[in-house]
């Protein structure tokens, strides 16, 4: 058994025309991050550097803590009682510790956007969905709002489909459109870091392809961290991949390296489909 061969054919194809990845300067750095649900430690001493304006994917079997890790970045765990962070996630350039008790979780969420597993548009109009984040930031001027909503919808590659339906209910859209609307909603406020929590797990293959294409385009404007249970997806969209297992970060490297020549045995076992 050699570690040199490609993991699976489809992954190899996806990687073929990818330029060799060089890391940008870091946007966020996790250092010695521990996390507890009650007495149950879900994350153990995680170190990870997330390069600016590139896509970093978190992969690993169910229950490995990848979503838990992702949700630390915008302090979603603070909504549940009895959770505890320890260690640091430092956000550049101002070096604020995102999980520090002195940091306001609402401020964190205003800087870091999130797209969820299932499309979760508000039962309001398409326009109001995208405008909501702007309204929270005090944007009142109609022209400003309209302009920024359009920009966000264009950024999420859904403008052409909804430009005549801005006043329709968002619930009338298809699943894939809803998810792109949610991406537009997150983009509207120009987040510094955009988190994706298995964004295509509730979508059909065509809608999935559109979202994946969008994520690779988003890299030009925003730093992306994505959790996925689909290895092909990680190979297709990401520049860097981190493999997590049982609450620990096993290995992180350029995506092409992880999928062709992982350094750790556990990583290789996972990407070759031996478990997970």
């Amino acid at each position, binding site marked *: 058994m050699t570690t040199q061969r490609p993991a699976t054919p489809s992954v190899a194809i996806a990687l073929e025309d990818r330029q060799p990845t060089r890391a940008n300067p870091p946007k966020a750095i996790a250092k010695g991050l521990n996390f507890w649900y009650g007495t149950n430690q879900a994350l153990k001493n995680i170190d990870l550097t997330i390069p600016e304006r590139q896509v970093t994917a978190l992969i690993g079997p169910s229950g490995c803590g990848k979503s838990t890790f992702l949700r630390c970045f915008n302090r*979603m765990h603070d*909504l549940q*009682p009895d959770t505890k962070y320890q260690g640091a996630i430092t956000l550049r350039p101002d070096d604020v510790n995102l999980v520090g008790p002195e940091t306001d979780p609402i401020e964190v969420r*205003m800087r870091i*956007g999130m797209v969820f597993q*299932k499309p979760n548009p*508000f*039962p309001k109009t398409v326009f109001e969905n995208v405008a909501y984040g702007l309204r929270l930031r005090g944007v009142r001027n109609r022209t400003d709002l309209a302009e920024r909503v359009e920009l966000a919808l264009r950024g999420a590659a859904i403008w052409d489909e909804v430009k005549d339906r801005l006043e329709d*209910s968002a*619930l009338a859209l298809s699943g894939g459109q809803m998810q792109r609307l949610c991406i537009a909603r997150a983009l509207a406020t120009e987040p510094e870091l955009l988190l994706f929590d298995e964004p295509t797990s509730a979508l059909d293959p065509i809608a999935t392809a559109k979202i994946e294409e969008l994520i690779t385009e988003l890299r030009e404007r925003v730093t992306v961290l994505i959790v996925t249970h689909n290895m092909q997806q990680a190979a297709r969209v990401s520049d860097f991949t981190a493999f997590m297992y049982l609450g620990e970060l096993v290995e992180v490297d350029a995506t092409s390296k992880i999928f062709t020549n992982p350094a750790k045995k556990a990583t290789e076992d996972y990407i070759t489909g031996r478990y997970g």
Partner: protein
Amino acid sequence: MSAVAPVTLAEIRKGLAWRKQLDKVFVIVGLLILLLCLGLLAVLFLDLVIQGAPRFGWDFFTSFPSRKAERAGILSPMVGTTLIMLVTVLAALPVGVAAAIYLEEYAPKNWFTGIIEINVTNLAGVPSIVYGLLALGLFVYQFDFGQSILSAGLTLALLILPIVIVATRESLRSVPKAIREAAYGLGATRWEVTKDHVLPYSTGGILTGLILGLSRAIGETAPIITIGALSFIAFLPPSPVTGEFPFLNFEWLKSEFTAMPIQMFNWISRPDQAFQVNAAAAGAILLGMSLAMNAVAIWIRYRFRKKINW
């Protein structure tokens, strides 16, 4: 090789036939019970309508009670009931919704809020006469509101408060976690999530609960007799709306009052048979009011369900 013999197709068919029979039995029993209940209500309503038929007419709605049965009407109890309901809504809705929001969205889950929750639920089962006694001591004497529309409205508000709180909490709880997370994820505070999302999306359930509460309150007799409703009122309270600035008048709150169920009770207890007809007519109208409110509740629920389906 398994020790248990496999079930044969013939046995499966025999068992299935029997199980499907049971299914049918349940449907029949259920339908019978349902028809019995609806039938009783229909018979009651029809009986009231037939008995009261001679009195239905414009005069009945525009006349005050009178010593002569054929000249007596329900103007003052209708107005009284309407104004009391108005006070009840204005008191029960804000207090009930605020309490439910606090319990559901803000309160930490500990033994103290646990006790409050159990008590709120239990309050729904307290006999209404007890609320009447409480109101007599508190509103009528302690706060000196007198035997007024204000006291009656507040009493009934207390009575339906648990219903409103429970319905509101249920409705708030039915807003999916994913929607809350979406709003929190954009940087909303707890109050912004509540006022911009959770509350608007649960309006249907809240209004339904409120109206169901009101349709219970509208027929309540014991508590408002306790606080001193009069059974013979030949005047109307001062109008809430006036022709001159500031166009609103709150004198009616202090006015003495009567209400539909009181008027019915009064007519029923008269020896003169002619008044029984009046009572039946008033009963049919009260029942109609209550059914109409329930219809509105159903309509509201339907409207909101159509707009928001999770």
